[in-house]
Structure formats: structure tokens, C-alpha cells
């Protein structure tokens, strides 16, 4: 595809439900990042993949958050037993790799936990 895509664009979950958010990066992009963006704030780093390897997951807020990228392309961010404080926009970004390459962002998934 032409850019990074994310699905669903909007997700409403009841507290305690599990959710899965999908990211399709630009084809050939090695690096993939997940961010959490609260309303009116800047994105906060969650996790980073280089191909299929999750090299940094230090930003995941709790063990309810889990991310995978099993074949080095599509990635899924899973949140178990959602809580109201998980409500945010979840952004995915990909890059060719390396610090010199810009990150291309997807449109985000807006998660609302009731």
C-alpha cells in the first residue's frame, strides 16, 4: 500500500474486554513502532520491532499489553482486560530502518473503554 494503515480506526470496548489493534506498515519497512497518544498530548513510545524481533518493549504500561510482528510485516497490539485509562489513540509508525530514516505514521486507532 501507499502508506501505513491501521484497523480498526475506532474501537469501543467495555471495561474488561480484550482488544486487538492491527498495523500494516509500508512494504519493506524494517522498523515498526507503537505509540499511545492521550488526548492533547504527544505520542508516548510503547514498543519497537526490527523485522520480527521486538527489541524494546519498555514503554508497555503493564503486562496487559502485548505486541507481536510474527512475520516481520503486519503487527498486532493486544490489550487484555481493558481499563478506562487505556482510552487513547494508538499510533503505529514504520521506517526503512535506522535513525536517519523518517517514521511514517498511520492514522491511528481511537480506543474508547467504557
Amino acid at each position, binding site marked *: 500500500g501507499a502508506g501505513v494503515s491501521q484497523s480498526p480506526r475506532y474501537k469501543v470496548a467495555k471495561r474488561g474486554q480484550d482488544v486487538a489493534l492491527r498495523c500494516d506498515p509500508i512494504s519493506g519497512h524494517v522498523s515498526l513502532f507503537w*505509540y499511545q497518544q492521550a488526548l*492533547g*498530548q*504527544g505520542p508516548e513510545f510503547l514498543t519497537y520491532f526490527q523485522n520480527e524481533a521486538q527489541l*524494546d518493549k519498555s514503554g508497555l504500561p503493564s503486562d496487559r499489553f502485548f505486541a507481536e510482528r510474527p512475520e516481520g510485516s503486519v503487527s498486532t497490539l493486544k490489550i487484555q482486560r481493558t481499563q478506562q485509562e487505556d482510552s487513547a489513540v494508538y499510533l503505529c509508525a514504520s521506517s526503512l530502518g535506522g535513525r536517519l530514516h*523518517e517514521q511514517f505514521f498511520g*492514522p491511528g486507532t481511537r480506543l474508547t473503554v467504557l
Partner: protein
Amino acid sequence: AQTVTQSQPEMSVQEAETVTLSCTYDTSESNYYLFWYKQPPSRQMILVIRQEAYKQQNATENRFSVNFQKAAKSFSLKISDSQLGDTAMYFCAFMKHVNTGGFKTIFGAGTRLFVKA
């Protein structure tokens, strides 16, 4: 820990005028990368400009330029000849290599810029 501070929550500028958005950061690293990203109301974030910390020359991209002061840990964005399409949230970001082999990017809280006709 690294932090990125944008002290101006909101700014406005008249069309065709020049505006400067400020950003300061805190790090003990010597090698890192700085970025300005733009997030229009549609929410898809795009890169405006980047600067490698080891380069002394300030980066420039058309109407956008930076004033990078490494010693002061300051990285401001200047937008010349402002256009209505520049209305957006602007985020300053710091990227560094981490010892796990990956990269971590830290964003500031953003500055909302309004360009008035």
C-alpha cells in the same frame, strides 16, 4: 531519563508572517537525532524536518528551518511565509539508539499552531 519540553501550548500567526516554535530537551547522550513532526486535524503525523546532533549546520526544508543549539539543548522550528495549511499540532521529538539494538523516540507535548487569514 530523556525529556522533551515544548513550552508553548498554543500559538497563532498571521498568514505570510514568520513564527518560531520552541523546544528544549534533556539528555546525557552525545549522539542523537531531533525531529519536528506535524499533525494536522486529520491526525496523520508527518515529518517536517530532522537534525543529526553531530551536525553543526542547521537543517532547512523550504520554508521550515531549525535553530539547533546543542550546548543549550534547544531545537526551535522557524516557519517562514506561514500558510493556512500550516495549521496543525507540531511535535518536537528526540530519538536515540538503545542498548537492545533498537531506537526510542520521545515526543514533547506539542504546540498547536493557528495560521490566520
